[in-house]
């Protein structure tokens, strides 16, 4: 098989698995998860083949692998779709394939395969647990299997398919298709427990919020297509078209077309990658099962958004030279990215739910990537995307494992506590050692723990990109965000694992099965090592021992244009070290030994601010007030009640009334007094005629129809005879 064909095949296995599960195997849990995992495994295998081809000596560094077919005929040409493998695709494939496969395996354990069915479990509800009689004859309350187990694997297979489509696409159209299917899957999966009102609401919120971004992206797509007549990367990113797009002015604010399209595309990313102000859906997306959170936060959805802007960097940065002024879209990215990074890091500090902390950290880390791209640190953004995918998938799956262990404890003790509230945990490191070690690896990577973790290298590169580019404000904002990141991560680790168990449930928590701990271990491995492929050459001591492979490989995408770090300063390095270690230390000191399940020590130190943070700056409430209520008012009161029912229908009803009124006037003032009196004479004649006509009035609709048809024909003939 040649590599082109293999690339075409990558997305297909999960799609086939989806189809087979939905159509045939949905009654068998074992077959369904086997199909899903085989599907993901095949995609993983094919991705690895393509990846290793891509990085080989005669790989894709010089020339990308591209293959096209015709899909939608448009006028005289075809809208082509195809696949493409270049350095960016290759690294995307690498982490997507790994994380997806690990999430699939993990889901088997997470959804309690092999456990009994719960007596009260219903589709659409989280399993409540089952009672079994143990070997000792005692009845025990244990975890029960997910009632819609097969359906879950069908949905995540479709999700994986969409992500692979997006990654291997060589054009904006199929990328958009993958993008939208993912939106749909996120809707289905966030709302997987659809009988739970909060899950239904969250699913809808996620879908609609990202849809707002999608509309702008679609407009970007439309304008790109109408200008260039193509949506293929090789065409739209060619020198000739980039030049055309930068040198022609669009009708909007005098921006160049490149800037306008760049902004539109970036708004798509703002929605999908959950940047301010469209970030509100992502924390609520926690309502879905935890593997879905990992899928959305690491492997697929949000990565897709950042991938889009990385892919479209040639257009976003068209006209930009290193050291020169930023283009409008880059400026927007730098501002929104760094603001989001700091803003959501502050919210994460005050969350109690173990998954919500991670959700806000995702938003914050995505902000880092977007900001990096905004200041032109292309490779750093891509690098952080990869490392983040690994450690965030790990952290989510780890949190799922923690919650699982806690649920076990809750069922065992019968204590009614929230298994997701970190203040109900504590001391879990003894109970769940593998989860602890791996979670620690992920947490340290997220905090950017120096030298050994992947997160350090990628985050350091972003900071140094911002600093060396001369964007001091961005640098400072990101550095503060990084400090907060280290702080809240250590707060989380300390609350969950250190100290003494604060509830009975936590004391009876239990390590999870191998299907869950194995994926954790694999991801932990990458969370550490993935950084070693991108150690800067100039790094004191370590630089140059391992070649900076990542930089030269992904950097090849830019064709040497504006990509070289000229001067090196030790400021960013010292800053990364200081914020990471400082934040970790602070977090440990404050939270290492909490006893109280109710009050967060920060609550009294921050006072009112804590409340604002815990309530996410009241942005949801603001949107409700500023957009949703007015939209409802507009539709209900203005458009429907006033315009449609009052003005338009009122007008037509008025005409009808006018007609009736006229008829009445004719009757009262003309017909009755004038005609009738004169007509009295012939009235008797009419009466006779009426009696004769009675035979036509049989009261049967068919006869009326026949009669009307006859009249219509006669009438038509008479009409034309008169006319001509």
């Amino acid at each position: 098989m040649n590599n082109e064909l293999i690339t075409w095949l990558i997305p297909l296995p999960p799609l086939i698995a989806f189809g087979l599960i939905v159509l045939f195997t949905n009654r068998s849990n074992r077959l369904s998860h086997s199909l899903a995992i085989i599907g993901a495994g095949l995609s993983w295998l094919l991705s690895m083949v393509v990846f290793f081809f891509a990085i080989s000596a005669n790989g894709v560094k010089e020339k990308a692998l591209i293959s096209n077919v015709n899909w939608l005929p448009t006028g005289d040409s075809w809208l082509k779709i195809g696949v493409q493998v270049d350095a960016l695709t290759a690294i995307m494939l690498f982490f997507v394939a790994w994380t997806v496969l690990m999430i699939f395996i993990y889901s088997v354990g997470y959804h309690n395969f092999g456990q009994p069915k719960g007596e009260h479990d219903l589709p659409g509800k989280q399993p409540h647990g089952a009672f079994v009689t143990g070997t000792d004859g005692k009845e025990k309350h244990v975890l029960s299997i997910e009632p819609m187990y097969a359906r879950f694997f069908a949905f995540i297979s479709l999700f994986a398919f969409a992500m692979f489509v997006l990654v291997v696409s060589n054009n904006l159209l199929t990328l958009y298709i993958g993008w939208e299917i993912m939106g749909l899957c996120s809707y289905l999966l966030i709302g997987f427990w659809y009988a739970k009102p909060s899950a239904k609401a969250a699913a809808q919120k996620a879908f609609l919020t990202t849809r707002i971004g999608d509309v702008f992206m679609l407009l970007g797509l439309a304008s790109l297509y109408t200008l260039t007549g193509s949506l293929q990367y090789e065409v739209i990113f060619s020198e000739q078209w980039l030049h055309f797009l930068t040198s022609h002015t669009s009708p909007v604010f005098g921006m160049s077309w490149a800037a306008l399209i760049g902004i539109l595309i970036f708004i798509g990313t703002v929605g999908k990658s959950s940047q301010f102000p469209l970030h509100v859906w992502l924390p609520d997306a926690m309502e879905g099962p935890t593997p879905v959170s990992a899928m959305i936060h690491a492997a697929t959805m949000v990565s897709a958004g950042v991938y889009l802007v990385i892919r479209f960097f040639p257009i976003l940065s068209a006209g930009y030279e290193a050291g020169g002024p930023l283009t409008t879209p880059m400026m927007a990215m730098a501002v929104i990215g760094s603001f989001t990074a700091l803003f959501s890091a502050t919210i994460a500090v005050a969350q109690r739910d173990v998954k919500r902390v991670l959700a806000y950290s995702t938003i914050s880390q995505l902000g880092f990537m977007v900001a990096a791209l905004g200041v032109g640190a292309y490779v750093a953004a891509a690098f952080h995307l990869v490392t983040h995918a690994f450690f965030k998938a790990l952290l989510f799956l780890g949190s799922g494992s923690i919650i699982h262990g806690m649920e076990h404890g809750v069922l065992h003790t019968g204590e009614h506590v929230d298994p997701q509230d970190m203040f109900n945990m504590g001391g879990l490191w003894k109970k769940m050692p593998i989860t602890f070690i791996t979670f620690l690896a992920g947490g340290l990577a997220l905090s950017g723990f120096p030298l050994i973790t992947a997160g350090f290298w990628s985050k350091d590169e972003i900071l140094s990109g911002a600093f060396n580019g001369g964007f001091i404000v961005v640098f400072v904002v990101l550095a503060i965000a990084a400090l907060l990141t280290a702080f809240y991560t250590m707060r989380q680790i300390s609350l969950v694992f250190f100290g003494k168990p604060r509830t009975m449930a936590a004391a009876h928590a239990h390590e999870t099965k191998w299907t869950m701990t194995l994926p954790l271990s694999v991801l932990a491995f990458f969370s550490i090592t993935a950084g070693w492929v991108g150690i800067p050459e100039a790094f004191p001591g370590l630089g140059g021992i391992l070649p900076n492979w990542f930089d030269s490989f992904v950097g090849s995408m830019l064709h040497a244009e504006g990509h070289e770090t000229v001067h090196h300063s030790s400021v960013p390095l010292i800053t990364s070290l200081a914020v990471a270690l400082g934040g970790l230390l602070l977090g440990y000191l404050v939270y290492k030994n909490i006893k109280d399940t109710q009050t967060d020590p920060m609550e009294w130190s921050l006072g009112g601010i804590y409340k604002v943070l815990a309530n996410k700056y009241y942005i949801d409430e603001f949107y409700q007030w500023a957009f949703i209520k007015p939209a409802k008012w507009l539709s209900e009161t203005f458009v429907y009640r006033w315009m449609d029912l009052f003005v338009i229908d009122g007008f037509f009803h008025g005409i009808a009334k006018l007609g009736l009124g006229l008829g009445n006037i004719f009757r009262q003032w003309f017909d009755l007094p004038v005609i009738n009196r004169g007509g009295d004479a012939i009235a008797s004649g009419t009466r006779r005629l009426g009696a004769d006509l009675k035979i036509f009035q049989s009261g049967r609709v068919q006869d009326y129809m026949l009669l009307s048809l006859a009249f219509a024909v006669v009438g038509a003939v008479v009409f034309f005879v008169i006319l001509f």
Partner: protein
Amino acid sequence: MGFPILSVMIFVPFIAGLVILFGTRQKPELSKQVALAASIIVLLMTFALWASYSLDQAGYQFIEYIPWLPDLGIAYHLGVDGLGIAMLVLTGLVVFTGVMVSWNINNRPHEFFAYLMFLATSVLGVFSSQDLFLLFFFLELAVFPKYLMIVIWGSPQTRKYGGMKLTLFLFIGSVIALVGALAIYFAAPERTFNLILLEQAGFSPDVQRLWFPFLFLGFAILGGIFPFHSWAPDGHVAAPTAISMLLAGVEMKVGVFAALRVAIMLLPQGAQYWANWILVLATINVIYGAFIAMIQKDFKYVIGFSSVSHMGLVLIGFASLNADGLMGAGLQMFSHGIMTALFFSIVGMVYDRTHTREIASLGGMVKVMPWAAVGFIIGGLVSMGMPGFSGFVAELPIYLGVWRVAPLVAIISALSIVITAAYILLTVRRVFFGELPENLDPNMPGISIKDKISIGLLSLFMIVIGIFPGLMVPLIESSVNHILTLLGGA
């Protein structure tokens, strides 16, 4: 002239209707079977037409020409082009599924099915007419059965109002169009109603500008153009299920099809002159319909207003007057027809079992009728323009086309994507998910095999066209190319 396939297709339902009305009065089952047989024959014939239409030749095919009133230039003149074929297939599908889901009608069934058949004849006739007089003839043929079906079998609360409103509006529309038709008849160099000849008549720009609004608006009222849309939701809601399907699925297409076939193609310069006005009205349609759909409390009204919104996109596609826009409009006519027929059939199924259309008193229907839920979700995805479904391949070209001529219209109308997603998701969530309300019987009968076939067939078309648009695109493209020549040659 070979086998008169179009005539046979048009009059098979008519004859079936007469047979039902006069022959099988006392045997309701037999009446239904006759109707079903006729609808299957029609469906298969439309497929045969689809398969045998020659794309290389393009243009109008399967021509039948019999002089009728030669002195007046009136002839029994049939023929279809690619778009016409797509519309015939659509009609075949909707009539067939309409008969299938009406199987449980027990109030005067023979009359119901007879009128349904007459309606089918009327619609098939309009799509096949190449004579303007004949087109009006077929168009008016529908008035009676439509009105009767709404007032006899419609929803008791609103059928009188809805039926009357719909009939009056459609009547006014066709009268306005008739005025325009007569005007161009007299302006033409020779006295003819032959549409193919009239295309080449070369009307002077003044004539085109003056009479285009009459023809276009008159027909577009049938397609629900703002501000003459209000008959559509009221009429659709008042009508019985099969008629709602036909009205929204096919009759609205009849309106825009005629607006395209007569107004735009005969008076291309008029179309260019008035295009901006159409864009304005159509954009209002799109946004306005979507907003109103969002706050409806009646399940069926949601779909009724969504049709107003989606038909606006067809008109936007027309008014962009370029290849992409027209192509998208053609696909959207087909896609929306199937989709809305599916929606109304499902609304009917839910209503038959719960006897309510109030969204607030529904819920959890997925447990009772999973097929209906899945069908509605598929329809919803089409409605939202989700890739992989026919709605996407229809709407994308429309946005591409209109972006070229009026980016502002593209931006405003694209916002409807979000609103559409909102009302579809809200409806899905409230009607199909959540808890089944207490007053509803959880053991209510599920849906029948006939309902499942209908849902499956309509869904299948939306998915297949969505994944392989190449099946339908060349058909519509051949018409679009012809229209573009007329526009360019003007």
